[in-house]
């Protein structure tokens, strides 16, 4: 009883605080500070049509490197926690038969989903989307495969190689920026190209493809660990 009262009091205090903030809110009528600078110079300096991409990959590229690292650390810890015993590896996951509809739909849809994910991360500098979104779409394809066939064997070697190569490639492109352009992860190593074209914005499509492959591989790896952890019972 006392617990319920405390919970109610906490929620009411939050509600009052938020209501006050809501009443004080006034929508902004113009950009301020750093956003103004990005809007004025982003297209000229970086050459990406999507300003969010130019911030994520170039102006705050170091942030994104850290972000990818955090995802990698999360995947590693999950692998460590859900590690199987030797004699569990060969067991099958007991599950009900999946329906014909799900199996057929996954056969048709999985390649299309992979293609769409690749489209999203290659066009990250032109349209909404980018490496993280494309990687997540690729991982939904893997999730659909696992749902359709719970005992499917996912080739972990390929996942590990894709993940390692794209991680190293990302840092190598960053170091090229240090040598050939203004600094670490600078995108002007190849020239900016025609604004709005697919091959434009210097190294951004390359970096975003590496990020997309790495994120897709990492999330697929996490899904694979969850799938395998069902074997031990």
């Amino acid at each position, binding site marked *: 009883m006392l617990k319920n009262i405390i*919970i109610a009091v*906490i*929620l009411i205090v*939050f*509600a009052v605080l*938020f*209501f006050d*903030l*809501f009443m004080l*809110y006034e*929508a*902004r*009528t*113009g*950009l*301020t500070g*750093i*956003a*103004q600078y*990005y*809007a*004025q110079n*982003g*297209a*000229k300096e970086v*050459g990406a*049509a*999507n*300003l*969010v991409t130019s*911030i*994520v990959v170039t102006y*705050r590229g170091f*942030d*994104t490197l850290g*972000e990818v690292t*955090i*995802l990698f*650390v*999360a*995947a590693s*810890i*999950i692998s460590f*926690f*859900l590690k199987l015993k030797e004699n569990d590896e060969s067991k099958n996951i007991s599950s009900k038969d999946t329906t014909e509809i799900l199996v057929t739909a996954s056969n048709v849809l999985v390649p299309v989903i992979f293609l769409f994910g690749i489209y999203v991360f290659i066009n990250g500098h*032109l*349209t*909404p989307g980018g490496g*993280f979104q494309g990687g*997540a779409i690729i991982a939904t394809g893997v999730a659909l495969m696992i749902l359709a066939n719970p005992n499917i064997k996912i080739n972990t070697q390929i996942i590990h190689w894709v993940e390692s190569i794209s991680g190293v490639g990302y840092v190598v492109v960053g170091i090229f920026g240090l040598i050939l352009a203004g600094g670490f992860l600078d995108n002007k190593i190849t020239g900016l190209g025609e*604004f*709005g074209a697919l091959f434009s914005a210097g190294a951004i499509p390359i970096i975003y493809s590496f990020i997309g492959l790495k*994120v897709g591989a990492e*999330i697929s790896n*996490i899904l694979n*660990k*969850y799938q395998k*952890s069902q074997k*031990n*019972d």
Partner: protein
Amino acid sequence: MINTEYFTLGHISLLLGFILIIVGFWGILTQKNIVKIILAFSIADAGINILIVSLGYVIGKTAPIIDGSVVQKAGIDVSDSIVDPVPQALVLTSIVIGFGVTALMLAYAMKLFTAKKTLHINKFNDLKW
């Protein structure tokens, strides 16, 4: 009489963010099943992300992508036709971190389930005094 001043896009998304945060806190504090608690964390997370994006909203402006709806030309000043791109870039980071945290929590939940064959939070009282 309802004040129509509060029916702008900025206000609606702000209100949605606050409501989702409170629903998430309610779930964290009251639910007994660990998976439901993790879901409540995700809901609060989504609310905070909507809140940050809505704080970058500028009245009557479009998405920060330089295409047909803005002006398709490099070197042009678009600062009077787009919303703030910085909160959107930060929310991208926040979503990825939120994903990592949720995945880790689910792995812990699986580990806890194998230890005690239950997900009821009151059964995990080993550290209670």
